[in-house]
């Protein structure tokens, strides 16, 4: 009923090829974005913003980045944590070296730095595929973390070996550092992920995205029809690392405030990869759903017994949370191996016909 498209005629190519061809989708997404910008900063407390929404947005950005590479271009990567670290450390170096530089520019430049490193470590993808490529990107992960841990220059020779986000402002509002209000950091993270999600959505609909998918589906056939593997694969690595780099910079500057290399260890790479797999490979929506699943669900599960009025030891609570969380991952992968995005897609198809399915 709500999804009835009767009367929606596509009279031009532009309207037929819109990002959201169905009016209801368009209205809903627009309303959701506006609501996301307005409601939480006004309503949500520090806990909600700081501990739940900000990490969700940052990981959604990282998941979109990895989804471009793994989901669309079919290149399995375990280097996400390393590329995020490149973004974080370059943002730190840039903003301490040039304090006048706008923090937005710093984020974008650190994304570019991560893209450059991503290109470098993407080179093996021309020769090796699948699991072997995953191992090669694993080398990137370990090497980069080792490098940042080893070379004190990256932390400005801090005796503590950590990088700390200084206070930086955008339009007079402090958005990074300990004095920045959570609402400001939230809006900043949201603005970045909203813009880059839109960019990603358009990238994958266009020539670049199609060439990625061609490479993913059968690289030899793609090569024969004129897709250049070198350019296409490296482009995927570059753009994906750009996203991860920006997410890494945000992780330190908007979320943690200070970090050591451990914040970017191999677990981060796995975490983002799981988001992409559970959310849905080759789907921007899937990246959002996957990030929500992995970041939000454990927090809610931890609090579930408490909110149901059950008192149990925190250890037991944690074990139960892990069991339920693991069980849910299995459940969703069995019910729908193509991820949560596919579940939504099926649901949407049904909704469009409801209440008169044929």
């Amino acid at each position: 009923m709500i999804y009835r498209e009767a009367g929606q005629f596509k009279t031009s190519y532009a309207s037929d090829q819109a990002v959201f061809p169905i009016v209801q989708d368009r209205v809903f997404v627009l309303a959701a974005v506006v609501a996301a910008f307005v409601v939480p900063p006004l309503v949500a407390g520090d806990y909600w913003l700081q501990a739940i929404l900000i990490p969700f947005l940052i990981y959604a950005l990282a998941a979109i980045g990895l989804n471009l590479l793994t989901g669309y271009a079919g290149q399995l990567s375990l280097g996400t944590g390393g590329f995020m670290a490149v973004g974080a450390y370059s943002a730190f170096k840039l903003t301490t070296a040039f304090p006048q530089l706008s923090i937005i520019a710093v984020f974008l430049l650190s994304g570019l730095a991560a893209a450059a490193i991503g290109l470098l470590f993407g080179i093996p993808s021309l020769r090796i595929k699948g699991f072997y490529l995953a191992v090669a990107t694993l080398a990137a992960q370990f090497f980069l973390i080792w490098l940042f841990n080893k070379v004190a220059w990256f932390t400005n020779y801090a005796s503590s070996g950590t990088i700390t986000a200084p206070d930086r402002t955008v339009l007079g509002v402090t958005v990074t550092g300990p004095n920045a209000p959570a609402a400001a950091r939230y809006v900043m993270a949201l603005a970045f992920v909203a813009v880059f999600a839109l960019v990603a959505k358009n990238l994958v609909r266009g020539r670049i995205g199609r060439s990625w998918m061609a490479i993913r589906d059968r690289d030899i056939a793609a090569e024969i029809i004129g897709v250049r593997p070198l350019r296409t694969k490296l482009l995927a690595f570059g753009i994906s690392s750009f996203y991860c780099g920006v997410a890494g910079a945000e992780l330190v500057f908007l979320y943690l405030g200070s970090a050591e290399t451990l914040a970017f260890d191999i677990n981060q790479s796995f975490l983002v990869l799981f988001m992409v797999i559970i959310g849905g490979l080759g789907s921007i929506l899937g990246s959002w759903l996957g990030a929500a699943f992995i970041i939000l669900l454990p927090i809610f599960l931890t609090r579930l017994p408490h909110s149901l009025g059950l008192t149990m030891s925190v250890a037991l609570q944690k074990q139960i949370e892990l069991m339920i969380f693991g069980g849910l991952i299995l459940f969703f992968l069995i019910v729908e191996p193509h991820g949560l995005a596919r579940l939504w897609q099926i649901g949407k198809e049904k909704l469009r016909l409801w209440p008169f399915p044929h």
Partner: protein
Amino acid sequence: MTWRVALVGIVALAVAAGPWVTRVQAAGEIFIPLLVYRTGPYAPNGIPIANGAIDYFTLVNERDGGVNGVKIAFEECEDQYDTKQGVECYERLKTKNPVLVNPYSTGITYQLIPKAPVDKVVVHSMGYGMTATADGRWFPWVFNFPMTYWSQASAFVKYVAAQEGGMDKLKGKKIAHIYHNSPYGKEANPTLEELARRHAFELTLLAVDHPGQEQKATWLQIRRLNPDWIYISGWGVMNQVAIKEAAAIGFKMDRVVGNWWTGTEVDVIPAGDAAKGYKSMNFNAPGAGFKVHQDINKFLYDKGKGAGRRDGIGEVLYNRMVVNAMLNVEAIRTAMTKHGNKPLTGEQVRWGFENLNLTEKRLEELGMKGMMRPLRVTCENHEGNGQAFVQQWDGKKWNVVSDWIEPIREVVRPKLEAAAVDEAKKLGYTMRDCAKEK
């Protein structure tokens, strides 16, 4: 299909309902959040710490009816020693107006240091965290008494010198520092380097990557180097592996000294007899022979109110947290002398921390005479005047084998003040004038 919908519905409902329900803390209590790790890779260390805290706070509530009549409320939050989960816990418990927090993780401490002045919550990182925060002029909200890593490292060097027969005998000796490759593990390095320069001993720094299960290469280097002494800054599984490896290459165990996070029961027991003779630094006496333990037994465990198992009482980390909780309580008590016997704010408790003066007499009243040294904290010096000792594992229990060792403060303090300026500048702090504090 319907059960699937039902399941999704239940999950959605749970997800939606979860965060709205929070228990309101009763009026007239002081709330202390407990960030614990009873699960995950560091659980063997985290469990005695968590039990020690609960037991002492419960003891104060049960035996004394609270601190001067004000009960202590506390709530645990499981963070698995993971920085992000720890921050989530802190933010969640922050809604209950905590006055102080003991993070028990270097990573989480680093996260909380910048937040402390903003949230008005005292960070007490007892014997861990960032050494530079011991300069209270720059970091009013952070306390790391009774001692810092740098003081500890200098006390270790003094101990070595005493064993070798004097500071001048250090010349030409070879000391290796095996450390966890993280901000925590690197903490001791600047002090050791400085002392190596002054006393002309040969220092070798060997990093072990997290989590420290793989140390073959490190110990191969040790074998080649054949140092006179080994100092270890490890945590969790790294400690057990290091002690086993030391035994495997036949290194003299009484010349291997861990820092105070590298000398608990769980570190040495897995190595069995091979760990006999292993030493570590400490600032709280081990064992369950103190009066406070009798009280814990009498008021809690005899009544089935204990947090853990009875035989866990007196473990090194259990005692450390009991001392930690005692210091928290005494700081609150100190604050009450100025602000009255009522629930206090973080600001008021901060004053109590800064003016804490724990005398020998008070320690005796608390049943902790000999368990730790008297302590005095000032506005400038948030490290206090703590001292450390060396303990040795005899295969069954830890024994104290040295006197209290005074750190080499004239070396540590100037470096600490310089580091405080560096770290505080990063956060945009200004130095306060302690003469103006009352």
